[in-house]
């Protein structure tokens, strides 16, 4: 039995046992997530608040569905661009949530570390749905679940992550989780889009995508925002696609049993061409469905460890 989960903020806070527990629960919840089985009353009477201070329709929908498949009540608090973002203290937000009788808060924010700060202020579990460039733990967990549907173990697996690592919360969670599960990680990116001192992450770093593809089991492509070129991170979208993008020709260099993954949404023609996405080795749509199951598992784990917030019943 692994230690109970009180918050889920960064992968580095998790033990191997906790990860295995979440993935195991997620596998059990997959039929419910896929709507092959009816929703279950596991979290009936519990209130989950989706506190989304940054636009993210896809992630919010996924958390929304995950909570509802477990029969939790969901309240959405979307405040992009309002005073909450601009500097209302986290203390005020926390006090509001507690006064509303919320049992768990799912926080999405552009401010790295805000979930850590919020967790200090509230007694209820905080589930990080993405904070700035910092972490997006449920994304990494759903990615691991997807990979493990295609291979028995990630021990020794060669995972290549391509793209804008610097600005990517997905990459940070992914690297931490892949290393926890025993995979070898290679980062491929323009040096301008690599975090400083990235060698301290225990990964291999290269600028030569073509050289690593034949030795890759999982090719994980990160989203690149078009506006980065305006800050001189790279010369142009065209050059990015040519030098760092994945197209059908590069897919041919990938082993036959490898996987192609992307956290979505894809900038078609930038980091991935449509041709590459249509490759049978692409599991990008599986990632989306698995996301619901993983988020169900995380909600379940966090709320089964947390005392019930007593309101009127």
């Amino acid at each position, binding site marked *: 039995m692994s230690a109970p989960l009180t918050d889920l903020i960064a992968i580095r806070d998790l033990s191997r046992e906790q990860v295995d527990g979440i993935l195991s629960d997620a596998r059990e919840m997959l039929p419910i997530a896929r709507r092959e089985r009816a929703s279950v009353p596991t979290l009936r009477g519990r209130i989950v608040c989706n506190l989304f201070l940054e636009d993210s329709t896809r992630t919010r929908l996924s958390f929304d569905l995950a909570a509802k498949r477990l029969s939790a009540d969901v309240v959405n608090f979307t405040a992009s661009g309002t005073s909450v973002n601009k500097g209302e203290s986290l203390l005020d937000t926390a006090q509001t949530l507690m006064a509303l009788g919320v049992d768990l808060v799912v926080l999405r*924010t552009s*401010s*790295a570390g805000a979930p850590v700060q919020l967790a200090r202020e509230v007694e209820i579990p905080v589930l990080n749905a993405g904070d700035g460039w910092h972490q997006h733990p449920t994304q990494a967990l759903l990615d691991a679940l997807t990979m493990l549907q295609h291979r028995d173990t990630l021990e020794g697996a060669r995972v290549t992550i391509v793209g804008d690592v610097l600005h990517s919360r997905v990459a940070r969670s992914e690297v931490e989780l892949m290393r926890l599960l025993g995979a070898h990680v290679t980062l491929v990116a323009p040096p301008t889009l690599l975090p400083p001192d990235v060698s301290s992450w225990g990964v291999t770093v290269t600028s030569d995508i073509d050289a690593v593809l034949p030795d890759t089991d999982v090719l994980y492509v990160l989203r690149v925002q078009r506006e980065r070129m305006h800050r001189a991170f790279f010369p142009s979208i065209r050059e990015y696609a040519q030098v760092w993008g994945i197209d059908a020709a590069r897919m041919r260099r990938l082993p036959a049993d490898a996987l192609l993954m992307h956290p979505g949404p894809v900038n078609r023609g930038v980091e991935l061409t449509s041709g590459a996405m249509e490759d049978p080795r692409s599991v990008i749509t599986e990632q989306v469905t698995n996301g619901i199951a993983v988020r169900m598992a995380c909600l379940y784990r966090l709320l089964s460890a947390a005392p019930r917030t007593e309101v009127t019943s």
Partner: protein
Amino acid sequence: MSELLIAGGRILDASTGTDTVADVLVRDGLIVAIGPDVASGASGADVLDARDCWVTPGLIDLHTHLREPGGEGAEDIATGSAAAAAGGYTAVAPMANTDPVADTAVVIELIMRRGREVGLVDLLPVASITRGLGGAELSPMGELARSEARVDFFSDDGVPLGDSLVMRRALQYASAFDVVICNHSEDPALTADAQMNEGATSSVLGLPGWPREAEEVMLARDLILAHGAGARLHVPHLTTAGGVELVRHAKRAGVRVTAEVTPHHLTLEDVEVAAYDAVMKVNPPLRTRRDIDALRAALADGTIDAVATDHAPHGREAKRQPWEHAPCGMLGLETAFALVHTELVLGGVLDAMTAVARFTTGPAGVRNTRGHGGPITVGAPANLHVFDPSQRWTVDRARLHSRADNTPFHGRELVGRTRHTILHGRPTLRDGEIASEVTHG
């Protein structure tokens, strides 16, 4: 006629190299006798017990934010002066980034007058280099230098003078009055959105990094420009090992440069940011162990002239915002000397006399400190600090004299504490208590 006897302390005066146990007798604001037996001739004197304590010149802070006028919610001249007295300071230099900006004699004189009314610490005037901290037009340096406040130190504080032409002209113009130009060493193009030191820790935490190059590029530019102009440059809050080397090299080359370091940059690493508690957010940012070691060595060998606090009060609500929205800055006045004693003196980096020097003669070599910084001799003004080097205490943010509580050292045990502070012959701090009456005439 009022007499004060500081009895039985160990006098540590870096300006004369004096290290001896003696009484100090003060009359009407001046030291009138020093020696082992002056007590006998002073039977009616008010006595401050200094046995087992250090008696040093009153400390001088070259870099202070008192927030008045304009930011009184976090600090004002009264609360900031009390914090200074509690930390052993008799003179502090309030930075010009007030609202309105201290860029005219009227604002400077308002601040100086308020300081005199409070009477707990002398204020050393600072004006901005450019009007309104705007980085374009020069403040009236000549007028300010010749005003009643006699301003001899100009700084735009945290706003770097990015325009090399304006910086060059500021240095050239300032040289006419032999006043000091102090520019924040940061190339703003390299620090857009920066939140903490750039390095392994910022990479993991996903916070945009503040590269050391941003500090060193600007510092190198300023040293070159100051050399060319023959002007006096003071480098505020040096934080990187590379910056230390630049200053060391410039001093050898004859550049008229002085430098300061803060207590927090001498003691805190960037890994402190990992909990995202914005009390650790500061500009320039906390760096790494390697930088700390270089700063300590430079403070010991005199490459860095002074410890300066950059005491920067911010209200708790401001500091409880998400990290990226929280303001930069840390309290410093009430912990600086005790922290340096604990970490650097007891840690074997500085001897006691050198530590005292970096808070007294060091600052006095940067600018005119007006009777502060020593010497402790007969006839000198009685601005003194009595420090008990063995008293252990735990920093409690709720018990500081500042209005704000953003100390990064909350909960830390320190060894050594200021016991008495004497300003112009009167105790502003007595046995750890601030003098309640406002007495300064």
